[in-house]
């Protein structure tokens, strides 16, 4: 079954160091084990990233990522049967350093049994004003193919474009700020081919019909970030992000993160994130009758809801004098606890008068274990 949440195709690793002078990313090998458990979804798998630079001018990278999914979410148990599937994502990229500028090009492919996505990404960043300011620009283009299991005649497409601009500025010896904006525009088949909406057939009963989305969607997101060096050697990072789209969804989030080293080898990280969103114009938990309007959605990701995350991480780095080509190694463990509270998506596993079921909520735990070699 198609994983609408699993469509990440290509990624950018370029701008990590852009707050300071233009430098290529570090040579490193990352092996990540990730796990998501909550709301009836159990998703886990590895991600392997390798990056190598040449002549201090060029850096290449490759990433291999897998999601193994066991799904029994509320959508699945109320309108289908629990299922298992696998998604595989591969991407490659190259960065080129030219003076105070870095140019990056990457390609990504994501495959699952009923979905395939390909994308290309181009980014550039330029330092100026004594290397205190960095301007970055980016563009991505993606092509999706959507299929439906058990229906060989079903095949749809969607195209996506991303436009990005960002500016980071060193403000003081202890403070860096940045602002970033991204416009995304989609065109094509944007539905989930399996999902349904429900509508009243009488005051005490309801039925289902397929959801229907517009064929275009355009969104704007802007993020403001500040990083502050605390007096006792620790980093405090704040982020505020605001969003709106042509489907009528408005959203915002804020996050605080503290990175605290302990001694020479250990690091502790904590974060708190809060997110709120309004619903799409064509969303309803229960429509009054069949074909009540042109567009119909009952996807809880388009409903009105809020969520919070509390995260804790511990890291350890070590090295040995007799390691020749390896400079150091590191081990990191993060655990994040999510909570989702929906304001107009009801838990229809409870049998009662339609429209009076309890509002849905769930918790989830995300675990990441990362092993890194720097060379």
């Amino acid at each position, binding site marked *: 079954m198609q994983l*609408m*949440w699993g*469509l*990440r195709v*290509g*990624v950018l*690793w370029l701008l*990590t*160091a*852009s*707050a300071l002078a233009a430098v290529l*990313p570090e040579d490193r090998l*990352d092996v*990540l084990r990730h796990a998501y458990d909550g709301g009836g979804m159990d998703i886990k798998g590895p*991600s392997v*990233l390798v990056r190598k630079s040449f002549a201090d001018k060029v850096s290449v990278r490759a990433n291999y*990522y897998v999601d193994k999914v066991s799904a029994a979410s509320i959508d699945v148990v109320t309108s289908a049967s629990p299922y298992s599937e696998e998604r595989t994502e591969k991407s490659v990229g190259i960065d080129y350093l030219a003076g105070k500028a870095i140019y990056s090009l*990457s390609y990504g492919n994501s495959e699952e049994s009923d979905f395939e996505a*390909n994308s290309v*990404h181009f980014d550039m960043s330029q330092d100026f*004003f004594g*290397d205190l300011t960095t301007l970055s620009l*980016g563009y*991505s*283009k*993606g092509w999706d193919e959507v299929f439906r299991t058990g229906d060989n005649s079903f095949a749809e497409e969607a195209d*996506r474009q991303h436009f*990005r601009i960002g500016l980071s500025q060193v403000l003081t*010896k*202890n403070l*860096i700020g940045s602002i*970033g904006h*991204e416009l*995304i525009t989609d065109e094509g088949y*944007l539905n989930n081919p399996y999902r349904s909406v429900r509508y009243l057939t009488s005051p005490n009963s309801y039925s289902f019909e397929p959801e229907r989305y517009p064929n275009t969607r355009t*969104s704007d*997101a*802007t993020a403001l970030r500040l*990083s502050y*060096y605390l007096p006792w*050697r*620790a*980093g405090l990072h704040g982020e505020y*992000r605001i*969003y709106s789209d042509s489907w009528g*969804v408005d*959203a915002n*989030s804020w996050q605080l993160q503290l*990175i605290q080293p302990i001694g020479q080898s250990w*690091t502790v990280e904590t974060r708190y994130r809060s*997110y709120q*969103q309004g619903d*799409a114009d064509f969303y309803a938990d229960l429509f009054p009758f069949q074909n009540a309007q042109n567009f119909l959605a009952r996807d809880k*990701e388009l409903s009105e809801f809020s969520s919070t995350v509390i995260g804790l991480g511990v890291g350890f780095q070590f090295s040995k004098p007799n390691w020749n080509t390896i400079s150091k190694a590191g081990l*990191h463990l*993060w655990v994040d606890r999510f909570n*989702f509270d929906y304001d107009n998506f009801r838990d229809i596993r409870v049998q009662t008068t339609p429209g009076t079921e309890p509002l849905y909520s769930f918790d989830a735990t*995300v675990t*990441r274990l*990362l092993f890194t070699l720097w060379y």
Partner: protein
Amino acid sequence: MRQTALISLLIAAALSSGCSSVQPWLKPYERARLADPVMNPAANPASDNYMHHVHQAREAMRGAEGSAGGGCGCN
């Protein structure tokens, strides 16, 4: 219209008067703290990127994820 003209005038005045004399206010040796790893919240791209992905999949909000995010080319 009048408001736009006023804002344009103010920006033009600021650019013509003061900005030409603004110099970079930190020397390279004054940026040691900013180069400390604690100042990089996106130090582990494979892990950070996965976390962006977890958020994107459950929220309508998308885009401007930051250093390890960006070109998703997807829903």
